[in-house]
């Protein structure tokens, strides 16, 4: 038996929790005592906790290898149990290739972002609070990916939602020109939009438990497969429904949950606003990890989606739920890609890009290309975290430049007290506005190079990470779903174009603002994580090169667990490929992935074309000044900037949600549950019974008996009393008569 470290799984949660406690309870004291060393303590402690969790993930990875990739469940304790209902949810860790992949991404990218944030958050008055939240986020994210049941997943799901809320609203006191607390509003918007998805998640879990009697992944999936094989119906008390339709409902509800968390149509509106949070948060939560939990959910539930696909069940006969997933993903990818054209805020471009890339992953998952979805998830985590952190570095540099001219004009030193993003209201300077940038490639060389790598990786240029993962999705689409393929290809072109536009506006041309002219490179604590991420963005494609997986099956069967066979062979152990034949469910052997030179060629040519178009045609010499309008502003593409989607959210989804909530509260909860059920049924029954007991049973019955006995005794006494006349002669007579009677008895009867 090879050594394994599965028992260490709980440490995954313990380390971030220690970090939360440290920074939440005592971190602030260190900073109050001494600003510089205190920040080091606070920031590095949190980072070391994140790195420790990463080490645990690596150990789990190695254990899985030596364990021939067999999934392991580490049971910690029984959490919820209602034996009479057969409801039992343990607190247990699912250690398999899929969850370990997520753990590695979350803790790996997370650690780099922690370290980066030490530099980025320098000088913030709530430095330790930030790191406490960041560690809390890691804690919940790891619960989400490591749980072995849907309820634990949901705990993490809600927990990361909470952390997202807290971190988007980290600078909650910031107000916009109208005096509205915009960051707090953005945080609330994210929270509310996610509630819609969470509502669906709760329904999905309830339905899952009702149908399969468990919430743990393994029993649910195996039970579902058994029922699929036997063609059994799902019974709900008196009713029953076919497995396909039940799972269609479950998977559609999962999809709604995923559209909330992973920012897909129609719930994506919160993600661009979420950029109000500090940039490391955007990188960690709103690009690399939390927003991918919707994809994780779908990939984790792949068995259910595949059963729906195989059973041919559809939603009202229109579209099957996996296809719906694919269409929503593809539509989101394209739409968000188009909106990204029209943004001037450096982070908003990346935010829409993230929505778009998440659409790619969702689409891949919907088409059944789970490995491709996970592959893109990983590479995207690398290059999008890189881009966000790079943009943070740019913002940081711009602020520095701004402070520089500020100090210059006023002749005083303000370098000692930089305030992060907090300071940009003064004279309406926005360090995130790309129109004020330009020419930064000279001032910030490192940032420029890594940003370039990230942008090209995102655009899908050979041989960077994004090319391989995006191409795998496109190749899958070209074989399985042409509509999705076309939508995604256009979205990929958009990606290349808006990244070209951004590169040009930020780094090329001449500085359009004094701040850009005086921007300074960020400190090493920020640039080193950027370089590591850039390396990963270059090499990430190697995780699942198409050539590598050729002949996987043979190699694997000869040396099980011996060599790392790429993501495909690795994830094979968590993702079931099967089909229903006459003999029942048959697990398909791993099919080597097809590399389609045609698809790759087309997308590469289009991407390069779009980049060239952006660079040398549309934005060739523009914009020269910060005030100059964008060349696209006169074209129909600009319509997307005023696309009434936010209005749609505010006017339809919010009121709709409010109305539904109001209806549920007024009618279902109040009118039915309180007024009818509680008042009419429970209260009135109880009051009626109490009335019967008090007035009938007690007053008439019990009291009647007691009073009756009393009055009976009284009446009897009254009657007997009459014999007591008080006349001695009467007593004498009765004694006499008594004697006579006794004598008569003895004389005549005794013998």
């Amino acid at each position, binding site marked *: 038996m090879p050594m394994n470290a599965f028992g260490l799984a709980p440490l995954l949660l313990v380390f971030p929790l220690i970090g939360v406690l440290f920074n939440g309870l005592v971190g602030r004291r260190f900073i109050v005592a001494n600003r510089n060393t205190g920040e080091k303590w606070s920031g590095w402690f949190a980072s070391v906790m994140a790195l420790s969790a990463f080490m645990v993930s690596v150990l789990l990875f190695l254990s899985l290898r030596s364990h021939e990739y067999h999934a392991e469940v580490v049971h910690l304790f029984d959490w919820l149990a209602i034996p009479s209902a057969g409801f039992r949810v343990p607190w247990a860790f699912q250690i398999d290739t899929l969850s370990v992949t997520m753990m590695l991404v979350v803790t790996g990218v997370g650690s780099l972002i922690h370290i980066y944030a030490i530099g980025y958050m320098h000088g913030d008055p709530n430095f330790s609070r930030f790191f406490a939240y960041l560690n809390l986020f890691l804690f919940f994210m790891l619960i989400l990916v490591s749980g072995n049941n849907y309820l634990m997943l949901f705990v993490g799901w809600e927990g990361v939602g909470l952390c997202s809320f807290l971190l988007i609203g980290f600078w909650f006191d910031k107000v916009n020109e109208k005096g509205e607390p915009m960051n707090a509003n953005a945080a609330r918007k994210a929270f509310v939009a996610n509630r819609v998805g969470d509502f669906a998640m709760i329904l999905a879990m309830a339905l899952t438990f009702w149908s399969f009697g468990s919430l743990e992944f393994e029993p649910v999936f195996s039970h579902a497969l058994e029922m699929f094989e036997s063609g059994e119906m799902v019974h709900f008390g008196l009713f029953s429904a076919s497995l396909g339709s039940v799972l269609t409902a479950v998977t559609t509800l999962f999809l709604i949950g995923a559209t909330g968390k992973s920012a897909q149509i129609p719930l994506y509106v919160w993600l661009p606003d979420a950029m109000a949070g500090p940039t490391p948060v955007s990188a960690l939560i709103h690009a690399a990890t939390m927003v991918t939990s919707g994809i994780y959910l779908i990939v984790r539930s792949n068995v259910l989606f595949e059963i729906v696909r195989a059973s041919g069940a559809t939603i009202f006969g229109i579209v099957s739920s996996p296809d719906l997933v694919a269409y929503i993903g593809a539509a989101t990818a394209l739409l968000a890609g188009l909106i990204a054209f029209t943004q001037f805020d450096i982070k908003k471009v990346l935010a829409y890009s993230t929505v778009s890339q998440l659409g790619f992953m969702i689409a891949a998952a919907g088409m059944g290309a789970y490995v491709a979805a996970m592959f893109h998830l990983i590479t995207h985590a690398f290059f999008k975290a890189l881009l966000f952190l790079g943009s943070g570095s740019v913002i940081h540099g711009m602020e520095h430049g701004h402070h520089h001219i500020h100090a210059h004009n006023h002749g005083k030193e303000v370098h000692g007290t930089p305030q992060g993003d907090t300071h940009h209201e003064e004279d309406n300077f926005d360090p995130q506005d790309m129109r004020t940038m330009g020419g930064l490639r000279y001032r910030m060389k490192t940032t420029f190079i890594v940003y370039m790598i990230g942008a090209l990786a995102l655009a899908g240029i050979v041989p960077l990470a994004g090319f391989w993962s995006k191409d795998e999705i496109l190749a899958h689409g070209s074989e399985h779903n042409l509509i999705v393929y076309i939508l995604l290809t256009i979205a990929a072109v958009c990606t290349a174009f808006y990244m070209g536009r951004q590169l040009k506006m930020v780094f090329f041309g001449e500085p359009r603002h004094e701040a850009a002219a005086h921007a300074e490179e960020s400190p090493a604590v920020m640039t080193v994580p950027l370089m590591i991420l850039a390396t990963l963005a270059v090499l990430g494609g190697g995780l699942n090169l198409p050539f590598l997986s050729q002949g996987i099956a043979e190699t694997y069967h000869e040396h099980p667990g011996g060599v790392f066979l790429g993501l495909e062979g690795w994830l094979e152990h968590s993702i079931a490929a099967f089909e229903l034949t006459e003999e029942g469910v048959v697990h398909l052997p791993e099919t080597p992935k097809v590399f389609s030179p045609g698809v790759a060629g087309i997308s590469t040519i289009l991407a390069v074309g779009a980049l060239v178009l952006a660079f040398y045609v549309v934005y060739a010499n523009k914009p020269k000044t910060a005030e100059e309008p964008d060349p696209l502003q006169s074209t129909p593409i600009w319509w997307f900037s005023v696309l009434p989607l936010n209005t749609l959210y505010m006017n339809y989804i919010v009121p709709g949600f409010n109305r539904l909530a109001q209806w549920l509260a007024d009618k279902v909860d109040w009118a039915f549950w309180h007024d009818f059920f509680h008042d009419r049924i429970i209260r009135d029954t109880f009051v009626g019974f109490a009335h019967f007991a008090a007035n009938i049973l007690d007053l008439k019955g019990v009291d009647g008996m007691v009073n009756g006995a009393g009055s009976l005794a009284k009446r009897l006494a009254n009657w007997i009393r009459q*014999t007591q006349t*008080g006349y*001695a*002669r009467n007593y004498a007579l009765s004694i*006499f008569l008594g004697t006579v009677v006794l004598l008569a008895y003895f004389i005549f009867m005794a013998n």
Partner: protein
Amino acid sequence: MPEVTIDWYVALSVILFSIGALGVLLRRNAIILFMSIEMMLNAANLAFVAFARHLGDLDGQVLVFFVITVAAAEVAVGLVLIVTIFRTKKSINIDEIHLMKG
């Protein structure tokens, strides 16, 4: 001259007892009542001694001594009561004394 047998004694005892009993039931004067009770006691005493003599057994005679003793004590208590009643009510009519009426 007929011989006086036990029957004669018993008959006399019955007659005396009956006179006493009727006296108790019919008369209202407490003193008379008292005397009647004495007569019933002595009727019983007569029966006791008559049978004791007839049967040659002294038990009856012993019992008579007890009865005489108790009767003497009773007379003492009874007369005190009568005197006290007379002092309070100025009457010894037994029908006027009914404080014990329930």
